[in-house]
């Protein structure tokens, strides 16, 4: 992965099926089979500000983008061959036959920025903080590691995880971008030290943080990957509003943004900057969901819920919405193009995913009639007051539902009251989102479990069948068996019961200056391996 040729890009594209849009003239990357150049400072924009600096505690990308270049993780995703998993501080690993014991060998000679050695002890301390946090320490993703029984370190370069039960998602969970390896010695003294301080072993060393303004890092000369990083340093500039963020790229004051821009911003940038800009696009493991309060009449009737999803013309909607918002891909419970995705031939059989919208709407009206509301009814759609992509989706849905005789009013709320209303069941229907760092049914199905089992399910329903299918798929012996269970889950959740349903999956659009090399789009905004990026002249 030293340099990118057109071939290597194509090769990696087949893995992730992302699209490289080469909009103007000759593709720049292909025209320059040159060696990575060392030096320079990369300025990138971040659409938010980090709360604390503790990756184990926080949940926002606005923390990952500026902070993660200071840290290593145990495993990581190979971003050029996403979702392939490779070692980061782990050199190699093995899994026992029963799937209950994972043994990792740690690379020798990795140093923290203070010069001390990184050993298995640090890995153990890190994961114990994440999985079994000491009293008074918050660990945001603790629940994903419930299968871990204990962690042991037979020697300073070996760490072993013992599981209570086999888990298909465990290994990938160790490649989580949030799980920064911390120093055991520091954690022993103060488990909350990392909330306000930085001490990692990553490719960049912390220099400066001006709250609300910017974050600066410089090259770590002792980084364990030889020849990396290429950059002398980086500067993350916090720009919360979309318009000034796009303007920053356009004026060249920032060269890239790792989250994703709207199609409008992409078009403006390309128009203004021509071949100085390269656009990479991909699917995104993010979607918007229509959440329905299953306790409220008439939504307690599955026929009414089915009518709601049948009324949405996803295929035509995709064409229109993808021009003005992040909403683009038609898909079921899993990201289209992921290994778990439903093939289109099967997808179109699910309620609301068919291509004949007239037939669907007829069916929807029939269902409403059957359910005793032939003339439609009125309800309120609660939405977040975030423009992209919530607002466009709300306007779209209301228009769709109007066409089967439903009169929907729109309320856009501040995050606080919005989530509170969802939690309390104080709503009819709403728009909710989901974003994950990997394609993993264990993650993507959580929202659909019985609401007493999942804090992400605001639908207020209980379904033991779904809960059971969830357990089973998590332990499935192979992918084929797992897929079968997933299809059952999908059919029940989205079609038969239509408890809640996805609208569309998002498109990830990363326009960046052509001189930024070594960046390869992946379908998640939680990753950016800054050490692979370099700046051309």
């Amino acid at each position, binding site marked *: 992965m030293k340099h990118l040729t057109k071939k290597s890009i194509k090769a990696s594209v087949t893995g992730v099926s992302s699209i490289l849009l080469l909009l103007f003239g000759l593709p720049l990357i292909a025209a320059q089979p040159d060696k990575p150049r060392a030096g320079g400072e990369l300025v990138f924009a971040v659409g938010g*500000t*980090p*709360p*604390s600096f503790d990756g184990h505690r*926080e*949940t*926002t990308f606005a923390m990952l983008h500026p902070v993660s270049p200071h840290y290593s993780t145990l495993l990581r995703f190979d971003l050029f061959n996403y979702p392939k998993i490779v070692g980061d501080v782990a050199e190699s690993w093995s899994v026992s036959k029963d799937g209950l014991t994972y043994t990792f060998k740690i690379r020798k000679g990795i140093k923290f920025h203070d010069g001390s050695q990184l050993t298995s002890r640090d890995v153990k301390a890190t994961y114990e903080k994440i999985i079994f946090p000491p009293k*008074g*320490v*918050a*660990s*945001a*993703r*603790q*629940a*994903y590691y419930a299968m871990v029984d204990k962690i042991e370190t037979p020697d300073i370069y070996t760490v072993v995880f013992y599981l209570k039960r086999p888990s298909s998602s465990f290994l990938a969970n160790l490649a989580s971008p949030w799980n920064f390896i911390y120093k055991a010695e520091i954690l022993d003294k103060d488990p909350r030290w990392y*909330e*306000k301080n930085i001490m990692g072993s990553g490719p960049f060393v912390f220099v400066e943080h*001006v*709250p*609300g*303004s*910017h974050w600066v890092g410089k090259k770590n000369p002792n980084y364990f990957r030889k020849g990396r990083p290429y950059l002398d340093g980086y500067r993350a*500039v*916090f*720009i*919360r*509003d979309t*318009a*000034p*963020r796009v*303007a*920053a790229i*356009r*004026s060249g*004051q*920032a060269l890239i943004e790792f989250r994703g821009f709207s199609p409008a911003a992409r078009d403006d940038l390309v128009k*203004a900057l021509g071949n100085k800009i390269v656009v990479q696009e991909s699917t995104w493991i993010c979607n918007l969901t229509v959440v329905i309060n299953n306790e409220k009449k008439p939504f307690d009737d599955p026929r009414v819920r089915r009518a709601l999803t049948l009324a949405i013309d996803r295929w035509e909607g995709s064409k229109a919405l993808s021009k003005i918002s992040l909403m683009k891909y038609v898909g079921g419970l899993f990201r289209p193009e992921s290994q778990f995705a439903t093939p289109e031939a099967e997808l179109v059989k699910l309620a609301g995913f068919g291509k004949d919208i007239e037939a669907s709407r007829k069916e929807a009206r029939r269902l409403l009639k059957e359910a005793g509301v032939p003339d439609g009814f009125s309800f309120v759609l609660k939405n977040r007051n975030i423009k992209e992509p919530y607002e466009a989706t709300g306007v779209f849905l209301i228009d769709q539902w109007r066409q089967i005789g439903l009169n929907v009013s729109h309320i856009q709320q*501040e*995050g*606080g*009251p*919005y*989530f*509170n*209303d*969802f*939690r*309390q069941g104080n709503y009819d229907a709403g728009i*909710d*989102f*989901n*974003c994950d760092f990997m394609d993993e049914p264990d*993650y993507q199905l*959580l929202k659909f479990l019985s609401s007493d089992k*999942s*804090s*992400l399910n605001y639908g207020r329903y209980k379904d033991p069948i779904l809960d059971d299918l969830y357990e089973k798929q998590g332990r499935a012996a192979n992918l084929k068996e797992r897929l079968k269970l997933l299809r059952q889950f999908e059919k029940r959740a989205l079609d038969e019961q239509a408890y809640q349903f996805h609208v569309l999956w998002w498109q990830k659009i990363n326009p960046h200056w052509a001189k930024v090399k070594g960046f390869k789009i992946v379908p998640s905004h939680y990753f950016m391996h800054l050490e692979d990026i370099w700046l051309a002249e």
Partner: protein
Amino acid sequence: MRQYIFKRLLLMIPTLFGVAVLVFLMLRVAPGDIVEMKYAGTGAFAPKEVLDLERAQLGLDKPLWHQFISWMWGIVRLEFGNSMWTGRPVIHEIAIRLELSLQLALMATIVAIFLSIPLGILAALKQDTWADYFVRVFSIAGLAVPSFWLGILIILGFLIIFQWLPPLTFTSFWEDPQANLTQLIWPALAVGYRYSAVATRMTRSAMLEVLREDYIRTARAKGLREKTVLVRHALKNAVMPVITVIGLEFAFLVGGLVVTEQVFNLNGIGMLFVESITQRDYIMVQTLVLLISFVFIFVNFVVDLINAVMDPRIRYQ
């Protein structure tokens, strides 16, 4: 006089206390707290225990009266607490952003003064001519054009015409005056124009009044040059009400800052305020409201004081 000042200063305490109670209650009555925002807002799957733990760490598990008293007690000891979002002391977070906002406020005020006084005088001297109408329309338009819209137009103008944008990050004036000014002059113009509107009208009417006074006529009769009359006599007496207005319209300034910092992505107090409100960072919002109210009341007090000193007719009550 001394007694008057003392009394006014003392009166600030109950007012500020009232502000504190009001903002505290208003924020807590609102559904949804910062912990909800942090986890649900990012779609994180976190069990209730994690949320409860975060709440306990922020003191949100305590009864309201307890939270209020500990906040008040902190303020008495000049400890304003930590931001619920970043965990750092609010004073520290505010201090970082204060320089920018103060400078912007100052520059906007200067812009306002430089616009309002000459325009106001012009309008007064040419009363009821096209020049007068122009100034009045210009100043009323200043009140009418939303400063965020003006800001958007300025930014777009630069981007589209010059492919240029003011610097993104703040540099202190003392470090690099040029970079500093190229960043702040545009928002200062957008805010200052609006700020100048009321002052222009005030200058005009004050000038009109002064020009009718006997001593101006005497000065003119003495054969003094028109310029001397204006500068020495008229202007001197017309400046007072302008100061008053500029002080009283401080609220405009704050409002302008809140919106303009958003449009120009300036890391100032206004931005911090809007951000803290959306994040439900209670401690930060409370402290900021107290601070802004304090400055607001204080500015009004100083204006009254200047008036009282300059105009012996005002009695101290």
